[in-house]
């Protein structure tokens, strides 16, 4: 064992306050082997989350109702990563699956940048939302492959929904590879700008719990319907997450393929 690897941990008292990789010790000027490999493990999880495919069949089994399957114009993951514009547009071959109705809400689950996030958190969020809808009407659920946030615009428009909501895998970090984001847009139609959406982010085991996210989302939906808008003109004012309010685990196990 190299003499200059730190044996004690003077950072022990800080570790509860941050997930940052502090006090890793040194092998000369480099990282000690354990810290090096832990980093590589975290990066591997993040990479697998980005490049993994959502198991839509397994997901659908756990949803409250049958869903419609669509895909974007990005044919594969490599195209998806290079061409965000294609990930925002609906593949025309899917258009006939979406028929116009009269709905308050269209809910879309998109893979985004983390299949793991969709596997772990989409089902609990959908159920939590389902139980809070009250008299709000919701179009058939849509599952969207190679989806960017704005893909919910043409989908919501085609379904004739007053509001579209996209649940989507967020770009993985090293500390969290399975974080889900929610984006709400009033009057969905192609060409809506990001400033016209409201976002709830960081739904994961150390962030926002599905029930709390659903509470906030329902509040946003009702406000949006009342005001007839979404985005910067609609500030979220629901009570913030209380400490100790732990998230419930997903019904599906995380998948790495």
């Amino acid at each position, binding site marked *: 064992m190299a003499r200059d690897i730190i044996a004690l941990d003077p950072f022990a008292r800080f570790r509860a306050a*941050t997930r940052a990789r502090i006090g890793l010790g040194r092998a000369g000027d480099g990282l000690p082997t354990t810290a090096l490999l832990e980093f590589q493990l975290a990066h591997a999880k993040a990479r697998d989350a980005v490049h993994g495919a959502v198991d839509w069949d397994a997901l659908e089994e756990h949803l409250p109702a049958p869903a419609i399957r669509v895909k974007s114009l990005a044919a594969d993951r490599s195209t998806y990563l290079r061409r965000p514009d294609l990930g925002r547009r609906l593949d025309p071959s899917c258009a006939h699956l979406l028929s116009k109705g009269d709905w308050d809400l269209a809910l879309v689950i998109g893979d985004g940048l983390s299949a793991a996030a969709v596997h772990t958190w989409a089902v609990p969020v959908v159920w939590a939302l389902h139980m809070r809808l009250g008299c709000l009407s919701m179009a058939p659920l849509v599952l969207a492959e190679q989806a960017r946030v704005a893909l919910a615009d043409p989908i919501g428009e085609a379904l004739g929904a007053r509001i579209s909501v996209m649940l989507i895998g967020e770009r993985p970090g090293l500390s969290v590879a399975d974080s889900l984001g929610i984006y709400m847009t009033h009057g969905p139609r192609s060409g809506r700008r990001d400033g016209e959406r409201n976002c709830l982010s960081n739904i994961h085991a150390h962030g926002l719990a599905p029930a709390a996210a659903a509470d906030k989302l329902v509040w946003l939906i009702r406000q949006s319907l009342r005001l007839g808008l979404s985005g910067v003109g609609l500030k979220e004012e629901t009570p913030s997450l209380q400490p100790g309010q732990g998230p419930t685990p997903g019904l599906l196990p995380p998948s790495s393929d």
Partner: protein
Amino acid sequence: MPVYATVLGGERHVFADLATLLACASPRRSGDELAGLAATSELRRVAARMALADLPLKTFLSEALIPYEADEVTRLIIDSHDAAAFAPIAHMTVGQLRDWLLSYDADGATLAALAPGLLPEMAAAVSKLMRNGDLVAVAAKIRVVTAFRSTIGLPGRLSSRLQPNHPTDDPLGIAASTLDGLLFGVGDAVIGINPATDNVEACITLLTMLDEVRQRFDIPTQSCVLTHVSNSLQAMEKGAPLDLVFQSVAGTEAANRGFGIDLALLAEAEQAALGLKRGTVGGNVMYFETGQGAALSADAHHGLDQQTVETRAYGVARAFRPLLVNTVVGFIGPEYLFDAKQIIRAGLEDHFCGKLLGLPMGVDVCYTNHAEADQDDMDVLMLLLGNAGVNFLIGVPGADDVMLNYQSLSYHDVVGLRHLLDRKPAPEFESWLMRMGLADSNGKVPPLGGDAAPLRRLLAGG
């Protein structure tokens, strides 16, 4: 409008305008492909470079890529052009400029004198004719020195930003990451936080906390909360201990409007920060971040390739005498820079162009998890930039930014690079490290035992 063309193997390659020529001459990258501006074949790319090599530099003075009337960045660039500084190269083509930059005639003093005579677009153009090694070799000749409480950019020095971000701005968490970095000798360029809560009150809380840490240990460095310039202005009005004004800047008026800024606002903020007179060894009070792809992502690139429009951001930055400028090169994502090859190239271009234009250029050597890159690639870019004489690099604990969810360099990387290339921190900071017992008599920062006196001192104070 003139048409540019070159004949290659019996085929005539035509480029409709200067913007098209520059875009086609650019090394391949996903952002230009996304914008539909990239050369459609490798042959066409070389044809564009051949036409560009024969282009007189004076063309850039007569042919604005974005009209003077339509864009205040163009007006700034044209109005501040120094014809006398340009005179020594006024007769050259872009290709001749490349040869001259590499020549022994172009030494550090000559290049420093040239900077005000160069338009950003000239720097962009010549960079497109240079290999990675050329970008390193020419940049290494240029020194840009700035100062506030420490002096950054001196020969034989390599400074660093300590970036102790925390997902909820937890004071203890930020303090822990800060102390960890100081033990590695990181933080002589700035201790700079990207705030999770982006409002004036939160910003003042963080500024106050950083200033207390700095004063408690008498650290000769500056702190910064990387919030919007309008928040910094309000914080200064409320008496917050603000050292540096931060702002992201881009290369067009429309893209800057997307950031919620214009040139007048930057000027107002610089004057306000100068008025606080907090610098001890110098009066550079601005900190700018830039990055290829920013203008395109704001749909405000005016048909310019992302590298050319990036250099116009340097044209904005240099008007405000910044202490620090860095490109966040790999942060923007694979739709602009797809993989490590593109990130490494862009990092070297940004550093070279910034230095050539007279900026105190640093680089956030970084990538996101959806780009085709990893820490091995960051090692390569870091080693190249170290040899290119980069003013500063950014370090986060274990290379993992837990707030912004991307990977930069680690504190280990910074200390390792300094030792490998025999570069020291800023002189004021180096003296402090020695005073604290963190650096040895050779200026090296060795590993400490867990019960070492300097460690105990810092932790007791934390």
